């Protein structure tokens, strides 16, 4: 077993969550890294869909952006941006939406818009929504991958850019949203899943060497821990090799 960083553990854990044949709508950054590792390891049939308009991209390096030319050159089909949203995402053809977040709250709501209470005068202006609101709404389920700190993992997001479970307790269904929303959150510390009733995120696994106390300290709400807490298997040398090769190829 090699040495590895917590970021590498997170990427590998996220990659493992994807399985072959799934259609995955890939956000840029951490989600793209994880999805590409999955396709290069246990899930070669994983279908990668990017909002720049590519269906079935098979990049041999990490794309530098969602509009990287390699995504188009290796795709089964290149389509317009309106088409990717209207014909492919909106009707529920995508199994998994794979998203990052600047802020994530205990009900899986995502903020990538502003930090601070005042939208008009924000503490920090973030990039905004991009494709995320409709990815979160229309994919069968959503996986979120995010580095966990008390600032990113909050009780309530300052701004709901992408709706997760709202205030929980079935609010998605009441709003008529057809996808299941965030069913899995993977951080550099562990793994979270929504409670089936309350839809609050519950710690269901920790990465090797991480304590529940560490997770609690990096969580901005009173953390619930699952009765059966798993420990993520450490990255295999194969997984690490693929991850590092992908990252190196994209320098």
């Amino acid at each position, binding site marked *: 077993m090699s040495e590895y960083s917590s970021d590498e553990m997170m990427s590998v854990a996220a990659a493992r969550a994807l399985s072959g044949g799934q259609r995955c709508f890939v956000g840029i950054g951490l989600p793209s890294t994880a999805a590409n590792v999955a396709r290069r390891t246990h899930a070669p049939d994983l279908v990668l869909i990017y909002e720049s308009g590519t269906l079935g991209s098979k990049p041999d390096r990490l794309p530098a952006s969602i509009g990287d030319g390699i995504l188009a050159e290796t795709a089964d089909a290149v389509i317009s941006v309106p088409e990717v949203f209207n014909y492919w995402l909106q009707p529920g053809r995508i199994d998994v939406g794979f998203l990052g977040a600047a802020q994530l709250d205990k009900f899986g709501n995502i903020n990538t818009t502003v930090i601070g209470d005042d939208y008009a005068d924000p503490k920090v202006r973030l*990039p905004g929504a*991009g*494709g995320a609101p409709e990815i979160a709404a229309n994919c069968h389920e959503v996986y979120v991958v995010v580095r966990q700190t008390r600032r990113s993992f909050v009780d309530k997001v300052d701004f709901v850019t992408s709706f997760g479970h709202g205030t929980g307790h079935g609010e998605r269904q009441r709003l008529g949203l057809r996808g299941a929303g965030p069913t899995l959150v993977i951080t550099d510390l562990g793994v979270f899943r929504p409670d089936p009733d309350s839809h609050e995120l519950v710690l269901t696994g920790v990465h090797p060497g991480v304590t529940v106390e560490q997770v609690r300290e990096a969580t901005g709400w009173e953390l619930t821990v699952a009765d059966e807490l798993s420990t993520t298997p450490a990255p295999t040398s194969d997984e690490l090799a693929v991850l590092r090769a992908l990252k190196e190829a994209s320098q």
Partner: protein
Amino acid sequence: MAEIVSLPGAVAELVRDGDVVALEGFTHLIPVAAGHEIIRQRRRELTLVRMTPDIVYDQLIGAGCARKLIFSWGGNPGVGSLHRFRDAVQHGWPVPLEIEEHSHAGMANRYVAGASGLPFAVLRGYVGTDLPNVTDTIKPITCPFTGETLTAVPALNPDVTIIHAQRADRAGNVQLWGLVGVQKEAVLAARRSLVTVEEVVDELAPVPGGIVLPSWAVDRVAEVPGGAHPSYAQGYSERDNAYYAAWDTISRDRDEFERWVEEVRHERVQL
């Protein structure tokens, strides 16, 4: 029919102070040279429209060309934030920047409605988010057949849309391929349009995945090789990732940025 002209001539003719202007391009084929020409000609009070405002919009905003931005994702892709955009939103420097914020799906459909001659588009979007609370161009609409509630967004019809493409022929027919983004819709939605191209050729050989905008759907074409730099033009150039990283440094500091603007303003125009 599209007329083939110089870039400075086209910008002088088509882009007016106070216009709603879209420079579209989804990472690929971004009309950066045209953006710099707008800075050079010191346009003011523009409402800038783009799904993914990145460096060239950061530059336009920093140079004080814009009073409003309509967008869905503003960042330096693969690098981080847009510092001039943040400075304008958070500190009103050099002038205050109003924003109208959507999602990609909403913006794409707003262009589709604009291209289609419809006043609005319908989508499954924004439900449960805070965007409708801060953006008044998002409204509910009821299906007259099922009674279901969906979301409506108004058409975007820019005064001018500018895009970059690989080629045009001498008649002004424009061809682009690779990631085609929302460029066709943005051009068709606009009152006036300019396409900068890598080269003007005698004949447009068909290309897999290529689309053609007929000459009569475009107003002006300007030959601007490398006009998408630091973004790329598939088949012509590679993305200059170092420039994106370097921009982070330049744009963090107002003084450094102003030196950059002065350089752009004094660039020799060879077109």
